């Protein structure tokens, strides 16, 4: 079980972005990926999280090779087991906070049973009072927290976060990091966090440092 990365290479044309990456992340681990800009962090995260496939090598999620999953299997896996948090809080502008948070549940047709959990999450993230607002009526930090609540709603096994604090002020960034800590601690969710902030990287239990497409630690 867990996440296994086996001799991964990723090329974009002639450019070799990832070169022979190997590691294993146990279930419930909190791992950060750091490195300089352009070192391949995002590329690696996308490959780990089914959004992209490696040029060579394999990624196993819960012992399933992501290369060999069909469209349907990937959709289901994403819906049930993966939560994404990106630097830009991608929310659907036509939906309210609550509807955005419930989106993965809507997809799995379990919307009504998740309303309570949605409210709890919003409460913990201190945006319960924003529940019926639309994204355009909220601040950037509030929107980012809505996106985090959406990532957590299905209680996924994996959370993949790419610079989730990149757009936030210090206070809000710290809040988001606290939240990730808490999720990892309380629900044994595997977290893979991409960040170039050394302090945040250090908060993870393990740090994977990328340099020029290779793991250097």
């Amino acid at each position: 079980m867990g996440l296994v990365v086996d001799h991964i290479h990723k090329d974009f044309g002639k450019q070799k972005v990832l070169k022979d990456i190997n590691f294993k992340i146990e279930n419930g681990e909190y791992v950060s990926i750091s490195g300089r800009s352009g070192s391949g962090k995002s590329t690696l995260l996308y490959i780990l999280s089914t959004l992209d496939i490696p040029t060579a090598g394999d990624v196993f999620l819960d012992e399933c090779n992501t290369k060999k999953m069909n469209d349907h299997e990937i959709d289901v896996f994403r819906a049930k087991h993966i939560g994404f948090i990106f630097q830009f809080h991608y929310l659907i502008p036509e939906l309210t906070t609550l509807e955005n948070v419930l989106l993965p549940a809507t997809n799995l047709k379990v919307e009504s049973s998740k309303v309570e959990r949605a409210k709890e999450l919003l409460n913990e993230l201190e945006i319960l009072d924003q529940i019926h607002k639309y994204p355009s009526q909220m601040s950037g930090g509030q929107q980012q927290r809505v996106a985090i609540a959406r990532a957590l709603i299905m209680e996924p096994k994996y959370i993949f976060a790419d610079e989730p604090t990149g757009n936030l002020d210090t206070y809000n960034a710290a809040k988001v990091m606290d939240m990730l800590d808490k999720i990892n601690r309380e629900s044994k969710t595997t977290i893979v966090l991409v960040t170039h902030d050394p302090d945040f990287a250090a908060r993870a239990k393990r740090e994977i440092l990328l340099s020029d497409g290779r793991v250097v630690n």
Partner: protein
Amino acid sequence: MFKLALKQMLAKKKQTFLIFLGIGFGTMIYIIVAGLQLGMRAYMVEQLLNNTAHILISGEEKYIEKDFVENHLYPDEMVSWVVPPSGKREEGKLGNPQGWFEVLDNTPQVLSYSPRLNVQAIASNTQYSAGISLLGIIPQKQIKISSLEDYMQEGSILDVTGGTNTIILSHKLLKKLGAKMGSTINLSNGVDAPLPFKVVGIIKLGNNQLDETFALSHLKDVQKLNKTPGRITEIAVALYNMDLATPLAKRWKLLSRDQVQGWQEANQNLMEMIKIQDLFRYIITVTVLLVSGFGIYNVLSIMINQKQKEIAILRSVGFSKEKILQLFLSQGLLLGIAGGILGNVLGLILCKIIGSIEFSFEIGKSNNLWVSYDYLIYVTGFCAAVCSSLIAGVIPSYSASKLTPLEIIREHS
């Protein structure tokens, strides 16, 4: 999913509303054009069937042929004519009316039939005389196959009874002769002494030429006047289903040398015109489809371009390609359904309005245009709106469903 589709459309109120109006308008135009056209067609066909039966069986007209004369008069000689013999040999008449009655009585598709004798006669009243076209009928049979009775201004077709020398005159003819209801006029076959006929009715057919020459009397009295007892020139046949006229006529043609013509064959010009009208209607339908389809295609394409980011989000939280396709197709479908309903309602209202306009001239018993409210027009209009919306939605929706989340996420980070 459906809710999201709705919400996305509501967020683009102006676009959605415009395209909704566009589809509605197109459908409406189709419904009005089709309603008017099919109404017009119904009017023309009805007009036509007043004067022509579904099937008309009439005597073969015989002409004098040179060879026939030569063979009979000069069987073994070479003849050269200064002026060869020509002209009509005799009035067209049915050779064996009784045989036809039997056929008609034994054909279940036949609703009713009316044997008639059509002759030219001279009508005179004191000083003035006029050539008339006199139709001898059996009133009880004739009223079953046509709506002639509706055109009676005074009296009834049933007032002409056999052996009483009664006659119905068209209104202009009546005026020309200076006759009125109840007066007696003289009719002559041009050879024998005239017979007196009593005017018992006035008819107005709405056709100038007919209204100056047409007269109706009982078959028996016309046969007597014409000195041709038992003669029938034609049998007008009404069918339960007028569309069977052509095949039945074809079949009956084989039975004798008499002419058998279905109403469609007898009115080929009109049928051609109807075909052209149909073509015209199809062209309008296709145009409406194209215009509304193109509108939907545009709106959806623009919307999908603006929505790439959201498509990426939906895909990343596990929405399948099919669901994305559904999301956008359902918007096209919704627009099509709503526009189709709007078009049907507007079309119906406008048809009612157009149908209630009083014109200064008469159009078949009333002053209103004939408008068809055939439900098929509405069904077709609605289906066309929905189908064109769906088809137009497929291309942009399909390309939306193929977007992978990665391309978009990378682009925006």
